[in-house]
């Protein structure tokens, strides 16, 4: 199935909604983590499955080892969100999340999952709220530890040809922490997103 790409109106609307959602997300994150959160302007892009490896490598801009967590969202909007953490930067997070005492590998993973869940939820809930869409989430799980971004997703194992991707970078002020949040919707889910965007455009 070939994806009907978004119209210019739909793209503009989505960009605006995502910008607002990320701004709110940054604000709520700052309240939860009690520190200042920097985030990039979200980038929206349609990607072809064959380019996924090079695309991911470009996002991260290095071949540093990363750890990746994924989480599904479903209901009116559906897809998966992937959070990439640089492997050496996430130790700093534990303290922030209130786990100062025990830092065994399991606790470290729990911190990653918690942070990933917060990032994903904050961004997606902001989008869903504006579109008046319902959203539920599954529990986060690990895709890979200590791998490179280019090795994370390989075209052979992916069940789609095209996907819509929203990408944003987070960093915390005064902390050695940075992560990439990638929200991906495969082709069949994009249709329902387009309907939501059209409904939103009609309402304004």
């Amino acid at each position, binding site marked *: 199935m070939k994806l009907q790409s978004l119209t210019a109106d739909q793209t503009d609307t989505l960009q605006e909604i995502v910008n607002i959602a990320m701004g709110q997300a940054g604000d*709520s*994150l700052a*309240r*939860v983590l009690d520190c200042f959160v920097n985030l990039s302007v979200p980038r929206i892009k349609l990607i072809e499955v064959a380019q996924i490896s090079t695309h991911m490598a470009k996002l991260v801009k290095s071949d540093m080892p990363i750890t990746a967590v994924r989480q599904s969202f479903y209901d009116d909007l559906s897809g998966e969100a992937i959070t990439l953490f640089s492997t050496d930067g996430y130790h700093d997070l534990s303290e922030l*999340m*209130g*786990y100062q005492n025990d830092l065994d590998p*399991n*606790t470290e*993973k*729990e911190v990653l*999952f*918690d942070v990933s*869940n*917060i990032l994903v*939820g*904050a961004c997606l*809930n902001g989008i869903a*709220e504006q579109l008046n869409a319902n959203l*539920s*989430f599954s*529990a*986060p*799980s690990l895709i890979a530890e200590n791998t490179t971004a280019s090795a994370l997703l390989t075209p052979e194992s992916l069940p789609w040809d095209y996907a819509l991707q929203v990408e944003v970078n987070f960093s915390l002020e005064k902390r050695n922490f940075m992560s990439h949040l990638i929200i991906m919707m495969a082709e069949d889910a994009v249709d329902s997103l387009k309907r939501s965007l059209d409904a939103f455009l009609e309402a304004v």
Partner: protein
Amino acid sequence: MSSPEASLAPFLGTVVDRINIGIFIINTRMEIVLWNHFMEVNSGKTADEVVGRNIFECFPELPRNVVENKIKGVFILKNFAFSSWEQRPYLFKFRHNRPVTGGVEHMYQDYTFIPIKNEDGEVEHACVTLVDVTDTAIYQKMLKEALESLAEASHRDGLTGIYNRHHLEESFAREFSRARRYGGTMSLVMLDIDLFKSINDTFGHLAGDEVLRSTSKQLGALLRQTDILGRYGGEEFALLLPETNLNGAQILAERILQQVAETTVPYNDITIQVTISAGIAQYHEGMLRHEDLIKAADDALYQAKENGRNCICCAQAPDEVTVKGAGGGSSS
């Protein structure tokens, strides 16, 4: 006409209460608002006892930091939160439901924290579900154990249970590069059962197998924790001795030869007497690859066989070979 929701209400109450999943609701003051039957049975506290009370007062053993953090995400971000058994086996330490079959210490739990929005879109309540995933945890543990024993089996010789050739080569390469890098001492002993072919020819191959098993067992009993013993080929064994010089290796080899010569192997109605020969080489800097060490020990073993068997031959340096007898065996 009443709405479908209204007509379902009596059912929903029962479902929430009797479903085989823990469900409870807490408000922003951390007070328990709803406590279903699953929670009553497993916690030993009824809804009457806990509803309206602060959850941490009712259950001081809860990991407060963790739970508060998850709930903060629900109230502030209006977001879901999760806790998975793989990272955190439980929040409430409940008994497992395997009083008979056992195998675990407690119930393994997955939690989902769900924001409940009011009419204004504000979140004043969090619904928490607790799923018992003890079975999953047990299967995971079994799978892990199976994979570990599979990995172990792939390093073992099927007949004798000692390490196989593959594992020996890996260990040699590892220990060799360690000795080269850090300048350590190590010795290799190659051992070969004397006249094994005639044992097979005289008593049959099953008897030969029994001799191999018995010899492996005797060798294993004489070793230290760090020594690596394996079956190198048919009736040939290799023994890698880290942090051991030629002299130490020779003392051990002498004990091995003596032990093997003095032990008879019972097989059906007969007993079989065997002897073993040994070639020893110590690592020196002239050796560039681990195969050089094997070759030196192998050459020494060949020399020991030439010298009449049941004896030890040491390769001391590339150009100097000395021979020493052991037990009742001959020497040059």
